[in-house]
Every structure is written in structure tokens, then in C-alpha cells.
């Protein structure tokens, strides 16, 4: 399997604080990888390293690029949308059609769920990129929008995109991810769960929860 993005022995420090420590991770073509961890574990830092928004203190970040396909799509959540821009203008900027909820109201005045949907639309709509990075994408979404998001990601997986998702909602990851990694204190836990060992549906989610809890305890 070819890789869409790779972190090799990556460490990211902010002064004395280490956000991510010695992480090696590859996201393959048509693969959905879930990233689970408690608050402050380094999930967002890891995604931002992949997106090129942070430079590693040590190690290497490689993202595939072929010139004809957008390399990376990244969305860190509704709180990263500029609050002063009207929703309709923001969607038009990205040539995204927009939901009925998209009005001339400023993004900062919309509900959290609507902002999340607007942000996801501008990130997701268009040709499949090589690598998709979404930080807590299900936060604030209603069931319809969650289904819309999952369908989109499945389409893109079929188109060969590598997808890296972080979430606290392990059930969401269980339904969609090929494997799930656990990040604790900036380090990837040795346990990872893949589809072949976990099975499908609720048992799979239960196994993920169990693995996550075990990780927390052993750290």
C-alpha cells in the first residue's frame, strides 16, 4: 500500500513542553486512521504537523503530492472559522454550495453545529485530495450531518484518499476507521486496533473503548 502521508520520528516541542514525542505514523492510500486520546494528548499537534501548519522540532514529515490533485485538506473545528465573515461569503469564497442554514449572518453568530457544517463543507467539497485531516469532525453535528460526513469520507476513501481523524467519540471512529491509534502524553501507545482483530459494529466499538481505557491506565 502506498502512503499518502508519513511522520518519521517526529517530535514537536513548545519551549519546555513537548506536544508530540518521537511519533512515527503512516497513512496509506484509501486508509482511514483514527486518533484517540485524552485532552492535551497531542492529537491536534499531530494533525497540524501533517498539515504543514507546524514545523517539527525533530524528525520528518512527508505528504504525497502529484500536482494535479490537492495534497491536503485540513479542518480543526468550527472555532477556527473567522467569526466576522458572513457565512454565505465564506462559502462562496470556496465555491461551496452551502446548506440552507448558510445566511448573511456572520460565522461567529451561527450555532456551533452550523459553523461546524459550514467549515466541513468548505473543507470537503470538491475533488478528493490525497490526504484528509480532520480534528474532532463530529463535534456539534446532528445525526443527519454526521451521516453526511461519514458518507463523504467513505467516498473519498474509495477514491484513494488517506484520511486521519481525531475524535473523543470512539463510536464514530469505530464505524469508519480501518485502524485506531492511541495518543497519550504526546506518544503513540503501543496498542492499536485494526479491523481484522476488532470485528464490526458494537463489539468493535466496545473493544476500542477497552483498549483506550487500558492505555490510560498503563500510562
Amino acid at each position, binding site marked *: 500500500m502506498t502512503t499518502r502521508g508519513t511522520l518519521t520520528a517526529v517530535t514537536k516541542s513548545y519551549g519546555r513542553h513537548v506536544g508530540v514525542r518521537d511519533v512515527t505514523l503512516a497513512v496509506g492510500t484509501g486508509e482511514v486512521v483514527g486518533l484517540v486520546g485524552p485532552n492535551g494528548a497531542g492529537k*491536534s499537534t499531530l494533525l497540524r504537523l501533517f*498539515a504543514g501548519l507546524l*514545523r517539527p522540532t525533530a524528525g520528518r514529515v512527508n505528504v504525497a503530492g502529484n500536482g494535479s490533485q490537492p*495534497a491536503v485538506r485540513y479542518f*480543526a*473545528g468550527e472555532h477556527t472559522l*473567522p467569526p*466576522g465573515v458572513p457565512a454565505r461569503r465564506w462559502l462562496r469564497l*470556496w465555491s461551496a454550495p452551502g446548506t440552507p442554514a448558510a445566511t448573511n449572518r456572520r460565522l461567529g453568530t451561527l450555532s456551533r453545529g452550523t459553523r461546524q457544517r459550514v467549515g466541513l463543507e468548505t473543507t470537503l467539497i470538491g475533488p478528493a485530495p490525497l*490526504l484528509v485531516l480532520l480534528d474532532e469532525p463530529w463535534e456539534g453535528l446532528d445525526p443527519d450531518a454526521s451521516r453526511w460526513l461519514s458518507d463523504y469520507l467513505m467516498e473519498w476513501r474509495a477514491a484513494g484518499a488517506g484520511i486521519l481523524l481525531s475524535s473523543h467519540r470512539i463510536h464514530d471512529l469505530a464505524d469508519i476507521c480501518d485502524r485506531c491509534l492511541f495518543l497519550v502524553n504526546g506518544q503513540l501507545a503501543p496498542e492499536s486496533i485494526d479491523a481484522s482483530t476488532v470485528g464490526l459494529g458494537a463489539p468493535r466499538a466496545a473493544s476500542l473503548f477497552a483498549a483506550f481505557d487500558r492505555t490510560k491506565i498503563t500510562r
Partner: protein
Amino acid sequence: MKQPSPLRFLWEILRPGRTAVAVLLIVLGYATYLATLGDYGFDEAMTMILVAQILTASTGYRERLLRGHFDAILAGRRRREPVALAHAALSLVPGLVLWLTFGVVDHFLTSRRSMPITSGGLAMFAYASLVVWAVSLWLGKNSGGVLWLTSLIVVAAAGRVQLLREAYGTSGAGWLATARAVGAALAFPLVMVENGGYVETPVLVGVWIATAFVLAAGVWTIVSLDAALKEPA
């Protein structure tokens, strides 16, 4: 989805709001009125335009970067220089429009050589605007303008203005005097719009070189700024 250009993207974020545009129009109107009252009125008008211009150029960058507002245009981008240059250009646009409009209106209303569109006026505009832009990248919106105004007040309060004027006025007497004149123009750029906006060529070259350095420093700041996302409150 079509990725917008850095100029188009940043315009949506940096464009002045309706209130800011209204304030700028009021400033322009009042400054034009003052300019018609004679030389004293013109000096006051220039000061007003300058204050408005340096405040609009202090757009800030770091705070918005930490909030993730630039994520969509920076993610996956191998080079940030086009984003940095677009940020600089758009930060200067409202002030430039104000500056040039005032210059043109003043020229037609008073039939005199208008200071803002002389070589000295344009050099001062570019230098002052880029300095406050570059400072505000780190320190936040309006900070560059406030610091610049404060520094002018401090220079004036310390009684150094006359010394700087004298240093600026001796630019023809050797390279050391020229260097001092450039230093005076950089420390107190208003001297460049005195004497009808005429600036000697070596001083002008020095100021433009300094302006290019300030622009490069601002671009470097945007290219190299790197920090964790600020968590929402």
C-alpha cells in the same frame, strides 16, 4: 472546491468593516476641509490622515494564526511567502486609498503640489505603514500604530525633533551626514514631508532600502511563526 488565492482569502478576513469605512470617509472629509484652510490646516489634516493610515495598516497576524483563522489558506502550502506578501499588500490598501485620495483631492482643491503624492510623501507612507504592519504581526491589531504614535510623542516630548530635523537637513555633506539624515528620516519619518515633500536622492534610496528590509522582516515573521492552536474559551 476551488482554492482561493491568498489575496482573495485574506481580503475576506482583513477587509475593513462598514464602521471602519465610515470612519475613514469622515476622516478624509474633515482632513480635506482642514487642508483648504491653509498651511496650518494642512499640517493638521496630514496628521489625521497619518494616524488613520497607520492604525489601518496594523492588521495583526499572530492572534488570528493561533485561533486558526488562516488554517484554510496555510494548510498543505509549501511556501508561505505569497500569503505574507498578500497580507502586507492588503494591510496597506485602505491607508493607501486614503493617502492617495487625500493627495489628489488636496491637489485639485488647493492647486498646490500635494504632499502625499510627492516622493517624500510616498516614501513616508510606505515606510511608516510597513513598520506598523510588521510590528503588529507579533503584537496584535492596532499595536503597531499605537507604538508608532507613542514613539513620535516620546521623541517630541524629549525635545529631539529639532535635532532630527537638523540631522535630516545636512544630508548633502558627505556620506556620514547622509547616513545621519537617513537615520533621522527613519526615526522621525514626518521630516520627509517637510520642505514640500522633497527628499534628496541618497536619503530616499536609504529609506526605500530600509522599507524593503522591514517588508522582508514582516514576510519572515509570517513564514516562520509557528505555535500551537489556542483552545477556544
